[in-house]
């Protein structure tokens, strides 16, 4: 009896403790979850979506995307006072930054005159310094490629630093200057219309030199920015951001941000119009790689407020897949939305591999092309989507995903499975079971990777490829696989490409000859006409003329059969009904400032009537209101 009483007391203590609000944070707290974790938060190395989201929350970028305007995305000034003045030849960009913006208070600013380390004003020279850091040979920048060869004198500055063994940040660069305290002038080597997109990326965050000098490599855990939040703590499982008390006055204008009642009404975001940003006091970001744990946490109701539907729960969670719609039980608890990723998954052949790619022998070259086409015909996109992507979504023809500028329609034969056609191609080209080359499918060791391989093997066997000639080339880690790809040792590479910015140029460069491995052109495709067209289109902004060029380039890719493309996965997102936001993990990054959380209000609880203004109260009361109007989607 005593034991039962003791257990009862202990359990009641736990119940009291566990069900309480998060204890450490004060004010409004938004608890976000991610399915991966960032490793570094130094802007020059913040290459992942996870890192980028935090980096852009704590640092300022010149531009950012309008929060609600998606497909197409639209840039707006952030630290910049307005959109840039661009010279007629498209080479000179003059950008004014906002006056009076302050870095957070930090020890790096401590001087005799400033013993408390009050944050100083952000000036144009800070941006110049931050961009130079990418070209400092001491650093390992992951973003320098965005500006490599683009800004007059920047590469030479880096080269001089390499040769001298020291970096002179005071040295002037002709194409990258702060002409006065608040004006940045950038001179390009050739027109680069995408440059403004790059200034919205975390890589272009503005960092004070004092912080880099004080913290060195430890800047990664000591960010000193001027963004809406400050980093309070960061480890492998969690990052905590708190409101930056010195953040400039910024008001949420939903109409300017692209509000559309039909698209966004269900979120209750209308209620946030006119609110000062950031709205919440604390953002907790849990890095939860385990789907089960993330799902359990989301469903608890008092832990993470945002999550995705894990693959193994999709059949239970959705009442329909086309379009995706969650079951009523979830619709009552959560807001639901889905979004096609701004990127795609695809497979490309290594065109430098003599067995499948280019050959000096014209006859073999034709045979190889037929072999690639036969493999493409064997590829069953629908089978892949059904097995690995829960049957949600459609493949697209070509390499530019729908919704991205430059997209064109093509006949569907390159994504249509045709086993008989594949067999005929092989036969006509002279391929037999005896002379077919060994097909080695590379992947990083995992159950899913093996399942991918087995599916491909099944398809190839159907077209007459001997089983013993289809092999799995398994690597212990993704790093090993990546290295093998970069060293051009794989015959085929299957991977995903997330767009760095919403412009097709970011996709077309994937097949530009000079970008071959170790660059981003993993197929090592090097086609004179394609290269020429790419160079011609490179300085063009999005236009009909450029789309025509991209269309021809895509036709070349399809004709040469560089690979099997493509498919953009669909993200299924759920967020707690006490949270007002319109979440995304595509393109946009500085999004936490727009999030609001409805705190429990006992008085309000009694009054069950909604106020009729379309605020979050409305959304909370209706199960259906929690689902997006799917008719307007995709």
């Amino acid at each position: 009896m005593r034991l039962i009483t003791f257990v009862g007391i202990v359990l009641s203590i736990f119940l009291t403790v566990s069900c309480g609000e998060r204890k450490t944070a004060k004010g409004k707290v938004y608890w976000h979850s991610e399915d991966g974790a960032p490793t570094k938060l130094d802007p020059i190395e913040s290459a992942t979506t996870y890192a980028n989201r935090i980096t852009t929350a704590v640092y300022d970028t010149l531009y950012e995307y309008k929060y609600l305007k998606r497909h197409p995305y639209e840039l707006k000034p952030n630290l910049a006072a307005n959109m840039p003045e661009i010279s007629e030849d498209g080479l000179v960009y003059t950008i004014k930054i906002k006056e009076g913006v302050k870095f957070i208070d930090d020890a790096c600013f401590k001087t005799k005159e400033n013993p408390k380390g009050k944050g100083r004003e952000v000036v144009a020279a800070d941006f110049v310094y931050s961009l130079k850091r990418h070209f400092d040979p001491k650093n390992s920048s992951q973003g320098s490629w965005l500006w490599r060869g683009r800004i007059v004198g920047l590469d030479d500055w880096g080269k001089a630093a390499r040769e001298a063994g020291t970096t002179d940040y005071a040295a002037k660069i002709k194409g990258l200057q702060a002409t006065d305290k608040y004006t940045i002038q950038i001179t390009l080597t050739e027109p680069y219309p995408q440059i403004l997109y790059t200034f919205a990326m975390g890589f272009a965050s503005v960092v004070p030199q004092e912080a880099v000098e004080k913290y060195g490599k430890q800047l990664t855990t000591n960010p000193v920015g001027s963004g809406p939040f400050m980093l309070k703590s960061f480890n492998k499982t969690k990052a905590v951001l708190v409101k930056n008390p010195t953040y400039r006055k910024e008001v949420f204008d939903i109409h300017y941000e692209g509000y559309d009642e039909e698209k966004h009404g269900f979120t209750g975001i209308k209620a946030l119009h006119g609110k000062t940003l950031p709205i919440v006091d604390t953002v907790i970001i849990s890095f939860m790689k385990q789907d089960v744990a993330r799902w359990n946490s989301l469903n608890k109701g008092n832990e993470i407020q945002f999550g995705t539907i894990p693959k193994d729960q999709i059949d239970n969670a959705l009442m329909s897949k086309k379009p995706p719609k969650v079951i009523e039980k979830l619709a009552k608890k959560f807001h639901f939305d889905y979004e096609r990723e701004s990127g795609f998954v695809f497979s490309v052949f290594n065109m430098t591999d003599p067995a499948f790619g280019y050959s000096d022998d014209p006859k073999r070259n034709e045979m190889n092309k037929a072999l690639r086409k036969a493999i493409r015909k064997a590829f069953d996109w629908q089978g892949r989507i059904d097995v690995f992507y829960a049957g949600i979504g459609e493949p697209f023809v070509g390499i530019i995903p729908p919704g991205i500028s430059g997209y064109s329609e093509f006949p569907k034969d390159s994504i249509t499975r045709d086993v008989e056609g594949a067999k005929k191609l092989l036969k006509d080209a002279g391929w037999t079971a005896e002379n077919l080359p060994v097909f080695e499918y590379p992947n990083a060791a995992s159950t899913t990777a093996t399942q991918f391989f087995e599916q491909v093997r099944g398809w190839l066997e159907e077209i007459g490829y001997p089983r013993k000639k289809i092999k799995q080339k398994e690597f212990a880690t993704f790093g090993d696989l990546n290295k093998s790809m970069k060293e051009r040792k794989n015959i085929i590479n299957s991977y995903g490409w997330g767009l760095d910015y919403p412009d097709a140029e970011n996709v077309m460069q994937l097949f530009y000859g000079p970008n071959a491995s170790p660059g981003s052109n993993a197929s090592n495709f090097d086609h004179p006409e394609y290269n020429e067209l790419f160079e011609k289109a490179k300085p063009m902004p999005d236009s009909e003329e450029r789309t025509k060029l991209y269309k021809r380039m895509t036709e070349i890719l399809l004709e040469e059969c560089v690979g099997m493309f493509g498919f953009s996965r669909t993200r299924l997102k759920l967020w707690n009904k006490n949270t007002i936001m319109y979440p995304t993990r595509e393109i946009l990054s500085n999004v936490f400032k727009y999030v609001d959380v409805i705190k429990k209000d006992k008085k309000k609880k009694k009054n069950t009537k909604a106020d009729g203004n379309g605020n979050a109260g409305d959304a909370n009361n209706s199960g259906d209101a929690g689902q997006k109007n799917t008719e307007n989607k995709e």
Partner: protein
Amino acid sequence: MDTLRYTLRKLLYSVPLILGVTLLSFTLMVYFGPDMAYEKLGKNATEEDIEREREKLGYNKPFVVRYGNFLTSVLTFDFGESFSTNQRVMDMFAETIPVSIMVALPGFILGNLISIIFGLWAAYHRGQRLDKTIMAGAVVGMSISFLIVVIVFQLLLCSDYGLNMFPTTGWEVGMNLEEFNILDYFEYVTVPAICTIFVSVGYNTRFYRAVFVEELTRDHVRTAKAFGCGPVRLLFKHVLKNSLIPILTRIILSLPFVIIGGSIIIESYFGIPGVGSVVYDAIVNGDQPITKAAVVCTAILYVFFLTLTDILYQVVDPRISLK
């Protein structure tokens, strides 16, 4: 004095052992570990960039020079900065090892205590239904994968589908004396501890039972029984006490894993910032500074605990001489 002399001699003998461990692990890292140069430079690096990065990472230096640098870092106990995170390795360990110990220790202690009790109980009733029941339970515990145990207990105790009593994720436990709150600690450690106990009790009970069964057949136990010694006194005074040497060996030699190993599964499912995931990620990504530090710390801890075990042997059995 003998103990001190023995300890010093043992530590001296451990130097070649540590050198051997470092050489072997370093060789494996150099020739079979992942190359971080590509990962550090992202998706659009040039060959020149990669070459420069390899130079920075020290990959281009001769093996002997690299191993020499490793030994220097062992001597100074400064393993530099992580290749992946840029954080100082020893700072990362200082932050994460205490967390791992706090997570693992309750399960480790309770798991061993429960196993010893079950082992004694089963051994005393050897061949009887109770013995068979305990052994069957142990086999069940051993047969279920740790991953399944973690998922099931999380579902049962932490989720909306079960009792929903404990947090699914997080570690909001003050890591210094001023902030530490015992209730917070219990809140976050209970389910991981239950998982650890569930899995460890199976293995440990079988081991301890075997030790106790052997001890129960000894003359002094039979004599004690003949003198009318009761089961509790018999088990705890005559059996357990005389079985302490294998028990100590098992427990103490598991401690380095508790301290450095952490538990990658527990940490990743419960969102606990321990050392397990740090070391795991380092091995997978080829983050050599962290891997080196983990290898060296584990080797040193092993030497320390081996020495401690030898000293404790003498404490529990004074007939043992430290020579």
